């Protein structure tokens, strides 16, 4: 039915999308088949035709932005003034950096105690245990100082990202023009590889924590903007009218009516800001951000698997804790106190937190372990874990297993596939992509895909882009073989769904580059390791959305299938999967976006793709090249994003689920 309506819409203005797609595909195949007789310029865009985008951008940045407009003076002032001041203040409080106000570091016991109280307030004993436990673990394992370095940056970056995002979100909601400008910029920002954030940050905001904080903030802003706009748009018109009838001025409307009424969405935005900040703050180790990320890089650089793993666990714990706490905050609604409740009872949580803080602060003055845990007292088991990991990898069956897969995938699948893609002439490749986009998403996404991929071809990085795409496609397809069955199996039962979803959460928050070392040790430096490390990442959304899609199929439909006498298999194939497909498509889309993200990181294993070039630019000052590469990734990712989401949207509308 969906296709019928879509086709009717399309036939109004000529050919149906499906027909256009078929024609394009045939053209692509013909072009590819004619490769031997094609002139050189039809196979690859000749060097001479490639506009010097990088030089133009360099000129733009160096001459216009930096020299003419003196933007760098302003940004550096901001970095060295207010931003550095905030970072230093937090760094002093949390990890004892010798800066104003010279009070820190706060003893770990006090932090853990306050965290536990906050956890209890937001989500009862379980949250209290999670929040307190995370900090206790961090201290015992001997990572307190580096974890606090990370937390101090987070505690500056997240609020700044929150306020900037909120402000931009309000502007975009208030003025349609701003919204129209901001939307495409956000799409690009969300698909831009994180390496592209790093270099400009260093150039404009000074190497080290300031640049890291700025890159983190920029990275975390987009979802905050989107959630703010969404929340404000969703405020019930009657609430708005009630506000107007109460005689609110515009300012009062915004601050007393709109923002409080959009609380839920704004808090969801806060949750996303925190999560993205944490992910990015770890990655900014590449540009000199101290803390967990830097330690992790150093540990990996000296091949200490056990310690890397422990740092990974700390990061996951912090991430899960912040995630759960902020989500608990979203659903936490104010409750009234009975009349006559004494003052202290109304504020019992606050008082307990202050009390615990003071008690541990005092204790720490006299008992050293309450203040900090020395190196000799920690419980790190780095060496033992090292041995365990190495032992596991040395097991013969494991080696035989990975050896076979390495051989099979490399020799029979990956390398031929890659060479095949590289063999296809550029125009045929673009036509093929456009045909796919047209068939799946319709004409609009197809036009964008055509435009975007042509730009990639003109960027001069075609081969590397194709290799990037090859890794993405291979990884997503492979992870479908794992994620879909896993999701389908897990969705059959509530308990398993929950377990698998928890595993998904954990896998996703585990810092991505920890996967690289086991990947290399299992498969060696080659494409299998690259794809393997991407697959770990991309399987997560596929599994998650399959479970969610299947579990949200309306019960009356499955009941109808049961009453029609469908077997389990029939029910799955004819009722559940078709209805879950639009949701699963979102997961599929996210898997592709994750793959584009991870493939850039996988450059650390050794690839010949855009990520490797991007990584190279980090060491220099090639802003122009850095941007061109980043935009190439972004354009390819956006083409898929637009296509798949357009399909999911149409499909949902057709099924009446939207």
């Amino acid at each position, binding site marked *: 039915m969906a296709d019928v309506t879509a086709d009717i819409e399309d036939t109004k203005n000529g050919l149906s999308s499906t027909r256009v797609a078929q024609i394009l595909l045939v053209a692509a195949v013909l072009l590819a088949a004619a490769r031997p007789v094609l002139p050189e310029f039809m196979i690859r865009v000749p060097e001479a035709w490639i506009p010097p985008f990088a030089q133009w951008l360099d000129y733009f940045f160096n001459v216009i932005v930096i020299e003419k407009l003196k933007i760098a003076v302003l940004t550096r002032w901001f970095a060295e003034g207010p931003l550095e001041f905030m970072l230093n203040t937090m760094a002093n409080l949390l990890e004892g950096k010798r800066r104003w106000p010279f009070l820190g570091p706060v003893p770990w016991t006090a932090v853990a105690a306050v965290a536990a109280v906050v956890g209890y307030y937001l989500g009862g004993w379980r949250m209290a245990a999670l929040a307190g436990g995370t900090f206790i673990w961090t201290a015992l394992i001997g990572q307190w100082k580096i974890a606090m370095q990370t937390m101090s940056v987070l505690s500056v970056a997240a609020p700044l990202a929150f306020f900037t995002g909120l402000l931009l979100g309000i502007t975009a909601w208030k003025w349609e023009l701003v919204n129209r400008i901001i939307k495409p910029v956000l799409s690009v920002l969300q698909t831009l590889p994180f390496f592209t954030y790093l270099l400009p940050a260093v150039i404009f905001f000074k*190497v080290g924590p300031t640049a890291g904080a700025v890159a983190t903030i920029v990275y975390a802003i987009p979802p905050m903007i989107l959630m703010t706009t969404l929340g404000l748009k969703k405020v019930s018109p009657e609430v708005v009218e009630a506000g107007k009838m109460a005689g609110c001025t515009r300012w009062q409307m915004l601050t007393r009516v709109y923002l409080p009424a959009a609380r839920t969405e704004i808090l969801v935005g806060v949750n996303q800001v925190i999560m993205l900040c944490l992910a990015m703050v770890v990655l900014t180790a590449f540009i000199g951000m101290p803390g967990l990320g830097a330690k992790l890089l150093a540990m990996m650089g000296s091949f200490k698997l056990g310690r890397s793993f422990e740092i990974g666990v700390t990061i996951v714990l912090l991430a899960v804790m912040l995630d759960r706490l902020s989500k608990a905050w979203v659903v936490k609604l104010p409750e009234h106190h009975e009349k006559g409740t004494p003052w202290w009872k109304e504020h019992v949580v606050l008082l307990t937190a202050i009390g615990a803080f003071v008690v541990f602060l005092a204790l720490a003055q006299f008992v050293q372990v309450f203040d900090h845990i020395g190196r000799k007292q920690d419980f790190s088991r780095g060496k033992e874990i090292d041995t365990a990991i190495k032992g596991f990898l040395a097991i013969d069956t494991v080696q035989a297993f990975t050896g076979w897969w390495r051989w099979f995938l490399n020799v029979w699948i990956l390398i031929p596939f890659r060479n095949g893609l590289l063999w296809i002439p550029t125009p045929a490749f673009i036509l093929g992509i456009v045909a796919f986009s047209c068939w799946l998403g319709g004409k609009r996404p197809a036009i964008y895909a055509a435009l975007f991929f042509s730009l990639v071809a003109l960027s001069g990085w075609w081969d590397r882009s194709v290799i990037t795409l090859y890794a993405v496609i291979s990884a997503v397809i492979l992870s479908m073989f794992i994620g879909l069955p896993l999701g389908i199996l897990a969705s059959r039962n509530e308990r398993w769904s929950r377990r698998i979803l928890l595993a998904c959460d954990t896998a996703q928050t585990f810092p991505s580059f920890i996967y690289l070392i086991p990947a290399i040790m299992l498969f060696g430096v080659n494409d299998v390791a690259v794809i393997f490390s991407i697959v770990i990442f991309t399987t997560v959304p596929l599994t998650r959305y399959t479970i969610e899609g299947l579990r949200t199929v309306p019960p009356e439909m499955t009941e109808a299938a049961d009453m029609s006498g469908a077997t389990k298999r029939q029910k799955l194939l004819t009722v559940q999967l078709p209805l879950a497909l639009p949701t699963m498509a979102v997961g599929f889309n996210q898997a592709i976006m994750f793959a584009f993200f991870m493939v850039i990181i996988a450059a650390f294993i050794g690839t010949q793709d855009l990520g490797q070039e991007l990584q190279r630019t980090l060491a220099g000052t090639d802003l122009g090249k850095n941007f061109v590469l980043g935009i190439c990734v972004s354009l390819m990712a956006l083409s898929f994003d637009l296509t798949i989401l357009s399909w999911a949207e149409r499909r949902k509308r057709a099924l009446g689920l939207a």
Partner: protein
Amino acid sequence: MKLKLTLSAAAIALATGTAVHAADSDDPIVIPIHNWSSQIVMSHVVGQIFESMGNNVEFVTTDSQAVYESVRLGDVALELEVWEGAFGASFRAALEKGGLHDAGDHDAVTREDWWYPMWTKDACPGLPDWEALNDCAAVFATPETGDKGRYLDGPVDWLKHGAERAEALGLNFTVINAGSAAALWAEIGAAEADKKPVLVFNWTPNFAEAVWPGEFVNFPKWEDGCDKDPAKGPNPDALYDCGNPATGYLKKAAWDGMGDKWPTAYKVLQAISFTNPQIAEMAKFVDVDEMEPEEAAEAWLEANEAVWKPWVEAAM
């Protein structure tokens, strides 16, 4: 905690009471640290020396290539490990732009080249001579390289020209670029369990020597211009037909303003010179003995007073 800080500050002031006359600025001397142990420990060693002289010191983590730009701009004051092979290009580029200068060499020499862990020799006894490589290319073969041997070179951006050398010397090897130092270690680590022969890019001094004993392959000796003049080296028609210089420099670099701002500390920096064994010892404290860098630095300073005390005394 506050109390303790004040105390230790006072202790330093007392111990180095004589240092007060030096006109070093109170601003912290910012020392960059990177992601390998010897450099981190060395930075802490030097930092603690400065602190013992009454200076304020601060450490920032930076990228090891981008750091020269930061030294040039004065964001950080100095750089303690300038490797000829790895960072020579970035260093020279920054030098040309101005703002930083060469603050002298360490005694240590650096070497980077094709390397193998000791167990490899069992499978290919002709090593370390490079000519033995072709005979045992098959032992280095992997599924994706077919019957050719596999050599894991450093990341492409390190510009080690492994592929060119294999070509120039007619080696039956496929050269693959790792993406990072960590990838190199992972490859060696994976081979360690069942003593699989591997051939990878490596350098000295670093922690790997302590973990995996090994040797560099002896290629034809480096001649100046081997990378520019085909005539140099055994193959008259090719570049890169020599091994890398076996004694590359290890320099210190300093921001031009350092001498004026912290004159005493600057004098010490100029005097500082570590040897290969000393650097290896620093790395070992962290990589093998699992110390934290600060502790490793303390331990090293304690054990080597005879080495560093004279540098300080000369500067005071």
